[in-house]
């Protein structure tokens, strides 16, 4: 009897879980199926085709019934996206590991105030500063450049990154560093040779978080970029989705979207432990 109750309880849990989770799986499935099949009747695909993926070869997305190109080359756009994401990750790692180290190890005038500011900024929504940032970017002559977007992304992500890195530095025993100093390293050498290799997990977490955040960026691209040659994949997918006046096969849009998601899926499959860690430390502040 108790077994039956237990079994029923588990079944109810699974049924509810599957029911609430299924929209997510179905949405991904539907997009995926739409890029490989001519017709997708709800969940049932028919007419397998690779034609929607043909842009992979040339990089050109064609508008049916027209000559010439309306969209920038997919590979140029991919390069921009990659450049943006890698540069953002690079600067975030460098800046946050420098600052996180000092904050973790030194006592200096204004340390408490700085740490307090970083923690408060961490919950402050940077997106509300968009109009002022637009003004600053214009004044600096960085409107319509990827540099402008990179600077803003790095700045807005930094409080969180510094907080994460400080946590990792706090976890390293002081003796380790002390012995390096005794052995004749100066602080800079000790930081680089002894400390940094010990916060590898933290660095990995920042790199993945910053890369994905740069790779997915949309609002700042939409707002600060004017020319197609600086587009990233988010703008391309946005244009393909909303470009109602130019007829694009929905399958092509779906294929471009999946192409855009490849790194995200790879990180999801192979770096989940970092993703979960990021999620907990990032928006969670515990």
């Amino acid at each position: 009897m108790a077994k039956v109750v237990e079994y029923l309880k588990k079944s109810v849990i699974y049924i509810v879980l599957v029911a609430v989770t299924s929209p997510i799986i179905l949405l991904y499935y539907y997009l995926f199926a739409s890029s490989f099949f001519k017709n997708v009747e709800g969940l049932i695909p028919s007419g397998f085709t690779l034609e929607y993926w043909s842009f992979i070869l040339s990089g050109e997305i064609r508008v049916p019934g027209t000559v010439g190109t309306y969209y920038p080359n997919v590979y140029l756009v991919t390069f921009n996206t990659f450049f943006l994401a890698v540069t953002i990750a690079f600067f975030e790692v460098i800046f946050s590991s420098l600052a996180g180290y000092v904050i973790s190890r030194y006592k200096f005038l204004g340390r408490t105030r700085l740490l307090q500011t970083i923690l408060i900024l961490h919950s402050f929504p940077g997106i509300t500063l968009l109009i002022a940032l637009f003004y600053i970017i214009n004044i600096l002559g960085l409107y319509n450049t990827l540099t402008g977007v990179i600077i803003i992304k790095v700045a807005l992500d930094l409080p969180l990154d510094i907080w994460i890195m400080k946590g990792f530095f706090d976890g390293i025993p002081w003796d380790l560093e002390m012995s390096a100093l005794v052995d004749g390293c100066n602080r800079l050498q000790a930081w680089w040779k002894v400390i940094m290799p010990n916060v590898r997990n933290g660095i990995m977490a920042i790199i993945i978080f910053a890369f994905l955040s740069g790779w997915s960026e949309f609002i700042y691209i939409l707002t600060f970029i004017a020319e197609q040659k600086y587009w990233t994949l988010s703008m391309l997918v946005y244009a393909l989705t909303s470009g109602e006046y130019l007829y694009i096969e929905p399958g092509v849009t779906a294929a471009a979207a999946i192409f855009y998601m490849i790194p995200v899926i790879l990180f999801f499959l192979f770096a989940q432990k970092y993703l979960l860690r990021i999620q907990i430390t990032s928006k969670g502040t515990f």
Partner: protein
Amino acid sequence: MTGSGGSGGKGLSRIFRRGYLYFFLLPSLAMIVFFFFVPAVLTFLISLTDMSYTLEWHWVGLANYVKMIQDPWTPLIFRNTMFYVFTTLSFFNVGTALLISLLTTHIEDRIGSAFRAIWLLPRITPSTVYALMWIWATRGDRSALFNWLLSFLGVPPVEWRLQWPWLLVILVNGFVGASFGMIIFTAALKSIPVDFTRAALVDGANTLQLIRYVELPLIKWPLMFVTAYQTLSLLTSFEYILLVTDGGPGLYTTEVWALYAYHMAFQVYGGGSAQYGYGAALSAVLVAIGLVLSVIYWKVFRMGEMMVEPKIEVD
């Protein structure tokens, strides 16, 4: 002489050592000052001007704030924002998040983790792709995913963006938003000592009683934290709404405060674009709320206690 020379050298090397410190801090400090403090102040300054395309400073005092109060759309935008934040928060960012974490912690951990991982997908998927999935799956024809599934219940096909714009906006945001609370709640539930739950079970509590009288009271703080934190993030977020309905259908049906500020400043079509002054005034309201709430969270959730002193004083 020798003494002072020695101490001079020491002082110099000390400055040199301190130099590292500022060299290490400088990039981050500069970024934070230049891209947080300066823009926060600028938002308020620009809100006192009628700045437009030319980015010229022309002071108009509080005219933008007067305009905001008199704007016939303000009451609608305000109601929309409240409705959006309240429903998304209660049904998804807290409600679904709690449901998922309770369910996945009451089954085998391996399977529970897999379900939680799936819930992370919407958050890490690029917003434009995620929006496309919803738009594509909820379009009007019969073979579209949602209409096809609902046809088995006898529901006639509809274009969701036109017929159920709010439902769509809440679902799109909710499926992203739930994962934050889910992770916090799961961590809190997992940290409840096994003794507590065993004691309750020995006393004859069933699963529902266990949840109601043992687990929920013990995760009261995380519940409050997620509610507070997500209120602010929903209040200021507009990206997914912009992508899915862009405030439509029609004029301002699903327009929220943050999106309205964005449209005033950057809308590409129609009149009323490049109103940076008015947009900044609308943003200034959110910046002020953001600052106040951030400081309150800091106090209420005792984040100050996380600021431990450095372990070893180096000097």
